Every structure is written in structure tokens, then in C-alpha cells.
């Protein structure tokens, strides 16, 4: 049975409204970046204490989602799960689009975004950031190659090998992203090798959730369908990823709690951190962990399409909370320069750093989302990425 593919076509109001929304988000995101660049970053909520803010949460959210979104293609090519094969193309495309959106947010938040060419020509290979530049661009190259083997009939015999390369690359890429934080020896909440597996599993949670939502949306627009079996097996897989993430987060915190030197930062995140503590327990653990896990494994809700949508959205909200707590909460806790001493200074030593996300930061982050999804729709409009289920049904 040959799988046919078609381009995305839709005249539904939801489709056109979504395109309008994506366009508005892109324009707003660009406007916000331009405003922050011309005025300087003082107009954002970021400061010399919280140097990475909401744009970085959005960017890493998208980058992790990108490396996780290709999981569906990997299941097909590497683990030979035939049910996912029709969706391998869109899975790979989604990965590229999400990565481009995330990278653009990162680049536009730079103090000197016009110096991108400098970042591409001057390298310090001891920096994990410099390695990530290769890992991100290399990932796009590898996935394009992978897509070529899927599109070009004569190259189909190489799809499995290309899929394996993309699978390995995505793990290295997410390890690189986790290492950005894991290698920060000075910060109490970072500086942990656990950041790598935590980021890898988080990427699987994010990528699977985004794929479920995107595949259900595009099939609705196109008035085609994705098999319930595919969606529900992905939801069960999402449940396993969420459980694994909860386990890794528990290990991370318990390990920290064992060492007295980390009691301060753990107390801050788990008990006294205000917004960060609420986001950790309510956002990350309850909304992003316990509720979706309960829905998937304790009720029959996970076996309904609406259940798949709800579970995926909860997982995305929980993952966003986790990144916010990790990236911003980790910076908000003061650096410990003199253990055993209370410190104060004009530069906010010894106090929890203040941070209020600003509108330009939010718009820049949302602009990355808009760009990712717009790119996806445009490419799917011109190239056959969508499985032609009706053609399969007619033939069979």
C-alpha cells in the first residue's frame, strides 16, 4: 500500500483566522524586538540581575519542542512503528519550523542582533553556546536531508539511516541546550549534570504535545483525519514522558536537598519563592504533571480527541512553568559569594532579584510562535506533507 501525500488546503474560517493571528504575532514580535533594540533593554523587564527573561523562556520552549517534535518521525524510521510513518514528514517539518522560531527569538533578543554574522564567524570552542550554533544549524541541515530521503522516491532506501542521524543529532542538540545551564558553575540552581536529561525528557513532552495539537488542527482545517490510534498512542507516550520528567525533577531536587549548601535555593524554589514556588507546585507539578497523568492513566479521557487536546495543553502549560521557574527562578535566587554571611550592596547582593515580564518580551516570544506556525502552514501549502488518508482508504 503506497502512502500518498497532499498539500494543505482549507477554506475554513478557523484556518484564515489562524493565519491572520500568526501574521499579527509576527508583526508584533518584530515590532517589540525593534523597540527593545532601539531603546535598549531597559524597556524590558530584564536587568543586571535577571539577564535572561521571558524571551529566553519562549526561545528554549520552542527549541526543546523542535527537538521533541521530530520524535514521531524517529518512531517511524528508527523504531519501525509503521503507524507513525504517514506523519514523519510533518513531524520533521514541524521540528525545523519550531527551531527557526526559537532561534529567531534568541537572536532578536541579543544586545547586538545585527552582529549575528560575528557569531557565525568568531568561535570560542570552549563555549557550549558556540557549539550550539553548529548543533542548531546542523540539525536543520540533517532534517532537510532526512526529508529529502522521504520525498525523493529513489532516496527512500536511505530514510532509515537519515532518520537515525536525525535521532542522534536531536539528543546531542538537547544535551547542548541543557548544558547551557548545567555548565554554569556559579549559580546555585544550575551547575548540575541533571540539567541534560531533564531537558531531553522535557523536549519529548513538549514536542509530543505540540505535534498532537498541530496534527489535530491541520487535519481539522483540511477536513481530513489522523487515525485515533495514532493520536491515542501518542497521548499514552506523552504520559510516560511526563512521568519520566516528574521522576527526574524529583531526583534533581532530592539530590540538592541532600547537600546543605543547596538548602537555601531549594527552600526558595520549593517554599519561599512566591511566584516561583506557586509556578513550581501548581504549574509544573500539578497542572503539567499530576492532572495530565491522572487523565491519561486513571480515566478514559485520554482515549478521546478532546482529552488529547486538553492533556497536551496542560503539558505545554506545565513545561512553560518549568522553564520559567528554572531559567528565571534560578537567576532570582542571589549568588552566594560569602557562605555563612548576610550580605547587602547597591547591586542587590543577597536579595531575591526583582523581575516583571514586560509586554515587548511577551510579544517577542509570541512572535516566535507565530513565525514557527506560519512557516509550517506556508510550506505545507506548497509541498505535500499531509498524509492523504482518503487516497489510502480508496485504494485499500
Amino acid at each position: 500500500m503506497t502512502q500518498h501525500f497532499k498539500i494543505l488546503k482549507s477554506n475554513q474560517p478557523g484556518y484564515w483566522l489562524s493565519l491572520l493571528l500568526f501574521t499579527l504575532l509576527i508583526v508584533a514580535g518584530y515590532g517589540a524586538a525593534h523597540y527593545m533594540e532601539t531603546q535598549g533593554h531597559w524597556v524590558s523587564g530584564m536587568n543586571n540581575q535577571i539577564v535572561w527573561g521571558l524571551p529566553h523562556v519562549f526561545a528554549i520552549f520552542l527549541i526543546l519542542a523542535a527537538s521533541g517534535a521530530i520524535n514521531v518521525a524517529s518512531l517511524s524510521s528508527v523504531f519501525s512503528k509503521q503507524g507513525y510513518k504517514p506523519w514523519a514528514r510533518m513531524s520533521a517539518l514541524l521540528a525545523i519550523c519550531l527551531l527557526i522560531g526559537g532561534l529567531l527569538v534568541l537572536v532578536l533578543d541579543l544586545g547586538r542582533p545585527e552582529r549575528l554574522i560575528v557569531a557565525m564567524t568568531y568561535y570560542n570552542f570552549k563555549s557550549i553556546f558556540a557549539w550550539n550554533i553548529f548543533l542548531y544549524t546542523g540539525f536543520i541541515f540533517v532534517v532537510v536531508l532526512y526529508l529529502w530521503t522521504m520525498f525523493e522516491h529513489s532516496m527512500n532506501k536511505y530514510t532509515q539511516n537519515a532518520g537515525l542521524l536525525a535521532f542522534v543529532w536531536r539528543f546531542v542538540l538537547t544535551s547542548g541546550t541543557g548544558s547551557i545551564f548545567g555548565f554554569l558553575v556559579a549559580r546555585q540552581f544550575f551547575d548540575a549534570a541533571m540539567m541534560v536529561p531533564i531537558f531531553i525528557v522535557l523536549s519529548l513532552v513538549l514536542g509530543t504535545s505540540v505535534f498532537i495539537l498541530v496534527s489535530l488542527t491541520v487535519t481539522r482545517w483540511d477536513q481530513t483525519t489522523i487515525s485515533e490510534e495514532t493520536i491515542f498512542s501518542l497521548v499514552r507516550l506523552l504520559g510516560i514522558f511526563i512521568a519520566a520528567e516528574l521522576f527526574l525533577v524529583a531526583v534533581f531536587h532530592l539530590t540538592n536537598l541532600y547537600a546543605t549548601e543547596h538548602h537555601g535555593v531549594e527552600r526558595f524554589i520549593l517554599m519561599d519563592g512566591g511566584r516561583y514556588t506557586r509556578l513550581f507546585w501548581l504549574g509544573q507539578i500539578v497542572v503539567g504533571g499530576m492532572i495530565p497523568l491522572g487523565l491519561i492513566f486513571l480515566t478514559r479521557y485520554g482515549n478521546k480527541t478532546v482529552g488529547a487536546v486538553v492533556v497536551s495543553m496542560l503539558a505545554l502549560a506545565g513545561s512553560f512553568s518549568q522553564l520559567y521557574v528554572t531559567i528565571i527562578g534560578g537567576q532570582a535566587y542571589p549568588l552566594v559569594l560569602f557562605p555563612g554571611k548576610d550580605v547587602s550592596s547597591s547591586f542587590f547582593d543577597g536579595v531575591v532579584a526583582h523581575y516583571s515580564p514586560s509586554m515587548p518580551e511577551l510579544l517577542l516570544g509570541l512572535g516566535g510562535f507565530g513565525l514557527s506556525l506560519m512557516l509550517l502552514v506556508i510550506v505545507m501549502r506548497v509541498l505535500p506533507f499531509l498524509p492523504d488518508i482518503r487516497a489510502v482508504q480508496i485504494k485499500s
Partner: protein
Amino acid sequence: MQVTIKSKVNSKRRKLLAGAAAAAGLSSGFQLIELALAKSDDEVASSLKRWGLLIDTEKCASDCDACVSGCNSEHNLDGFDRPETDAQWIRKIELTDQQTGHVSSLPMLCQHCENPPCVDVCPTGASFKRDDGIVLVDKHICIGCRYCVMACPYKARSFIHESLHDQKSYSPRGKGTVESCTLCVHRIDKDQAPACVEACNTQGNGAMLFGDLKDEGSDIAKKIKASSSRQVRADLGLNTGVRYQNL
């Protein structure tokens, strides 16, 4: 970058001259060695030196901020009255021991580490260390990613959040880039002490001692050999160029 390249060339030339001087030294005394080690106009940094500071916290008074004023005036660091985003190259920290209640005060600035985390993480190499141990930022290739600010254990770096005016020609700064204490490299290259040290000596209590840590005859080298001093976050193994006494 030009500085490091030049200093590497100078370093090779110096070694060659030093070698020649050593060979000739037997017959002509130490005159040639002195000539080889003398600093020429185009010679900027030498790995034969390592500049450092020794700060005596007992002499550093809580109500004195002469070092901070000296630095701000030297580099024109006047901010925009926005403490969260204004740059601070040096700041006074007040410490209170949680067990004993003992209060002390000290200036905190870039510690000019031998193994600086800011240099390790910088993707473009804009953060760099001169041969004489001074850690600097090349403002021409800094892309403003702020990874070095995240990596610095001493909170010594500032990101420039808005446009600056009336900059000093010897201390270029720029919106969207990161900066920190330069140890007044422009003064050191003219055989002068950093502005903070000068201010501490003239208006403060003489708590800061500047000098070449590698020169066994220097006051700073003698003092750290004779009495106890410590590095902040010595556990990180960064071998800081700034050391503290009586902390």
C-alpha cells in the same frame, strides 16, 4: 583581539631577546637582560606579569566608597538613576557573620581570574584574558548574549541597557554589550595604578594594594607570602587576581 595577537608576537620576541641576553649575559653582565625585559611603546601585555589586588577588609570602612567614586569618575559610569539596569564595575558589599554578628565591608569587582568562567562561556571570544591576567571584553565582537553575566560567580559584569553619552576615549562602552572592571588597563599600560586604588589611597583608608603578583620583589607578592589572604569562592578553583585579607 589585536592586543592579544600583538602581545603573543611580543612574547615570542621577548623570549628570543631574553634567550640572547641570557647567552650574552655571561660576558656582559645583566645589562642585556634588563634591556630584553624593558617595555617598549608597542608592547602592551606580558605573561611575565600578573596584575592583582590585595584588599585589607579591616582597613576598608563601611562608610567609605572612595574606590567606587574613583572608578565611576574615571570611566564615566554615571547611570540613569535606574539601579536595576545601571552598570556597576565596583561596589561595596557589607557582610554580617550569621553566627557572630561581626560586620565587615569590602569592594567587589571583577576578580580577574586565571581561569575566568566568562571567557569560557563567551561564544565569540569577545571575553578574553590578556597575557598579564587582565580580563576584558572586546566591544567589537560582543553580541550581547549575556551568557558571561550568567557565568560570572562575582556578579561583576553589567549589560548596557541604554545609549550612553560622553564616554571616555580610553574606556569605550556601548549599548547592547557587556562590560566590567578593566583594572584600568589604560592606566596600567602607563605604569599607573587603577583609579580605585588611587582613590582608596588618597581619599580612603589605603585598603587596596595593587601590583605584580609574579614579581617576588613587589609589595603585593611579599605581603601575600608573609600573611594570610583568601580568594572569594576559592572552591571554584579560578585563581583570582584579587585577594582579600582579614575576611
